[in-house]
């Protein structure tokens, strides 16, 4: 196993966003650890992870697989025409590193744009990645997406901020 460098962590974050923007969703899902979780809490950064408050999305690999399979289904009516997305990321910062356990936490401010037909939706916030470096490479234990206004009345968000 090679040493986990700050650069390799940053490259991983950029690569993850690129896979989403290219809609290479199976490859994206493969970046998650077996018990990995994708979480968009309803109170954003204010929300404690204690299960007392709901989320816009809180998905394990099973539910993420379901979401991805649905998007690929020709009868996913809401994908005619399809949605596209673009992540614009700020330079991540490493907020926590445990080299012995090979666990890292990064914080990445972002702007997310989702477009479909003639409508465009923009969200912004901070991503928090909890990563583990395994023999197969870096894997996502948690991708927490703290939106700036998660409680607002929103239109449909169909892809992955």
């Amino acid at each position, binding site marked *: 196993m090679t040493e986990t460098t700050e650069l390799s962590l940053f490259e991983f974050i950029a690569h993850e966003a690129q896979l989403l923007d290219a809609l290479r969703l199976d490859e994206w899902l493969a970046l998650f650890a077996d018990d990995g979780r994708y979480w*968009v809490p*309803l*109170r954003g950064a204010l929300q404690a992870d204690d*299960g*007392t*408050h*709901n*989320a*816009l*999305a*809180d998905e394990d690999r*099973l*539910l993420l*697989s*379901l*979401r991805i*399979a*649905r998007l690929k*289904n020709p*009868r*996913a*009516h*809401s994908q*005619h025409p399809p949605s596209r997305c673009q992540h614009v990321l700020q330079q991540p910062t490493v907020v926590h590193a445990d080299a012995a356990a090979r666990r890292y936490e990064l914080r990445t401010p972002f702007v997310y744009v989702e477009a479909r037909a003639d409508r465009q939706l923009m969200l912004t916030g901070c991503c928090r990645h909890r990563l583990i470096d395994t023999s197969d490479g870096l894997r996502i234990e948690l991708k927490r997406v703290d939106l700036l206004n998660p*409680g*607002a*009345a*929103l*239109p*449909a*968000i*169909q892809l992955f901020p």
Partner: protein
Amino acid sequence: MTAYRRPADIAALVEDDRVHRDLYLSDELFALEQQHFFANTWSYLGHASQVPAAGDYLAVEIAGRPLLMVRQGDGGIRVLYNRCAHKGSKLVSDECGSSGKFFRCPYHAWTYRLDGTPLSIPLKSGYEGTRLKDCESGRGMVALRHVAVYRDFVFVKIGDAGPDFESYFGAALRAIDNLVDRSPVGRLRIDGGVLRNIIHCNWKMYLENINDTVHPVSTHESAAQAANALWQGQPAEAPKPMAMEQILPFGESYDFFDRMGARVYPNGHSMLGINFSIHSGYAQMPDYEQALAAAHGVERAAEILQRSPQNSVCFPSLALKGSPQAFRVIRPLAADRTLIEAWSLRVEGAPELLFERSMSYNRLAFSPMSVVAHDDVHLFEGMQQGLRGEGNDWISLHRGFDPAERAAPILDVNGTNEILMRNQFRAWVEFMTMSMPE
């Protein structure tokens, strides 16, 4: 735009078995709904658990009116217009909070007691000899006259016309009973936050769909197929993860939805799934069922638990799910724009699992990031556009029509019968025209 000045013009939009497209498209009808329809019907405002202590308030806009639900010192609940008697400033601008012992206007510091009556104004001597005391501005905040708190669900009627609360809802209130009685102590609490969606369609289109059981087979095909493919090969008795338990039934057949049955009540209310529903198959919890039997008796407990209607509509603003304990509120914003809120409930005295189910269901089905609703929303927004086309001014509601159906006040029907929608539109005409001059 003054095409709909007379009640007869409005009544002509709703025939026995079809409705005119202007119901969804017309800005004029939307304005008339704000003025008449929502003044004559009882709208859901909020839940008493959102204002637990004296001085707590919840600010909600209903039919364009800014309202404040306020917990009083004596434990009661009042609903006031969120308007300073002086110049109209909103007294609070947060959506909820505590005002302490009184409201104080941020503009000129006029203050009011929790019941809205005037407390003090600065430069009082300047009003001596004026007419202030004798006019509306001297009387304080205006309280709504028609407020009903039914088992902590708070409803308001804005105008003086229209039936009183009990005559308006009648037996449809059993849907609220079913929900509240799931608590061994008879109490629910809003918790876990609200999921808010903006949908670019008419509010009636969304409300109709709550009663529509024929769309899931085709509309939700992608989500149901994806779920089925993932779950394929599992033994029938394998315990399903909660999300699977909740999504898989969206793929049920026409026959399933037909057999689930439905009931219509006077004034637009309805209950879908009177025999069973997509919520009937959730895992049982013996300890909880025993606690419920101890509280309500074995027979009533069984009746509460066995009845899991898919949707109970308290027309026009509330759609309840007894299980998973959750509800939606429909708030029209414009002829082609609707706010939908999905609230989760904690059932006091019941296991945490019930609350988890409530949040999970709302997240899967009603979040802006739902895996199920994207297809609904896409279709609603497409219908809103499609209806602009000429050549067919009507929306068909013929399925299951029987000329005798208007005679029975409460009627049980098959689950795919469009009488649930016909019933809503009949009520719409009634309350829309009730206070309109001929």
